[in-house]
């Protein structure tokens, strides 16, 4: 535990993550040009979610912190998602 807490992520990992994030950004922009119809929003959000995962785990160091913070992030994200889904159901099928 103590070892993990003081873990210093190597340079290489950080650079790989940035390369991945930039690649995903470019993929996201390219996907917009080839229209996927209604799937576009889903694809854009999925890519954004994957990018967030890496920012949270590596840049924000969650991988090496107490589980409590990760659980909190998941809980807050779920709360927003559920509220958005319920509100949309209400608006669209009223």
């Amino acid at each position, binding site marked *: 535990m103590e070892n993990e807490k*003081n873990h210093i992520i190597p340079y290489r990992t950080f650079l790989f993550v*940035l390369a991945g994030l930039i690649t995903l950004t470019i993929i996201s922009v390219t996907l917009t040009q080839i229209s996927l119809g209604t799937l*576009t929003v889903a694809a854009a959000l999925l890519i954004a979610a994957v990018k967030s995962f890496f920012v*949270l785990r590596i840049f924000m160091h969650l991988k090496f912190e107490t589980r409590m913070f990760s659980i909190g992030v998941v809980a807050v994200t779920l709360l*927003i998602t559920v509220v958005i889904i319920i509100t949309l159901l209400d*608006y669209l099928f009223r």
Partner: protein
Amino acid sequence: MKDTVLAGRDTAGAKLGMWLFLFTEILLFGGMFLLYAVDRAKHAAEFHAAAEGLNRFVGAANTIILLTSSLTMALSIAELRSGRRERSLMFQSLTILFGCIFLGVKYFEWTAKIGHGIFPDSPELMKLPKGQILFYGLYFVMTGLHGVHVLAGIVVLVFMLISTINRRITHHDYVRIENSGLYWHLVDLIWIFLFPLFYLIT
């Protein structure tokens, strides 16, 4: 536990406090995303038409700038913890520079829009269909609030830079810059969602 309490500073508590604050920030933007979701669902075609008015390559460039600033932020902390203070100072300065570039690009984007008469409540905007008015309303409020966060992040990072120069932040005592970094990454995280939702609508 003894390693987390240093010079009268409870680093575990400091981090917990920071994360709780970040949760409230996520919820703040979450409320706006909720409004966005409903408006877009009701005015899909008009949102698409309005989004055509934004330059997605400028948006993508700004995304890459902000992502890179997150990297330099993370590197500055890794360098500091490894005891390489000078390199940490360099990466901290780079992070601040990237933040300023991001805001500069945003400034030019906004002034271009305002130059075309598109700003909240402008006569030009009010002539557009309702969905487009809503789109630009959300655009200015959400990217504006995000911009305020970037500005706040830059101010905080300048204080961290000064503290590192004065050796009040060292490789033994770095929780303040770690927490500042968390804030900076959160601002990056929010932009990761703002970018596709405003620039990439088809």
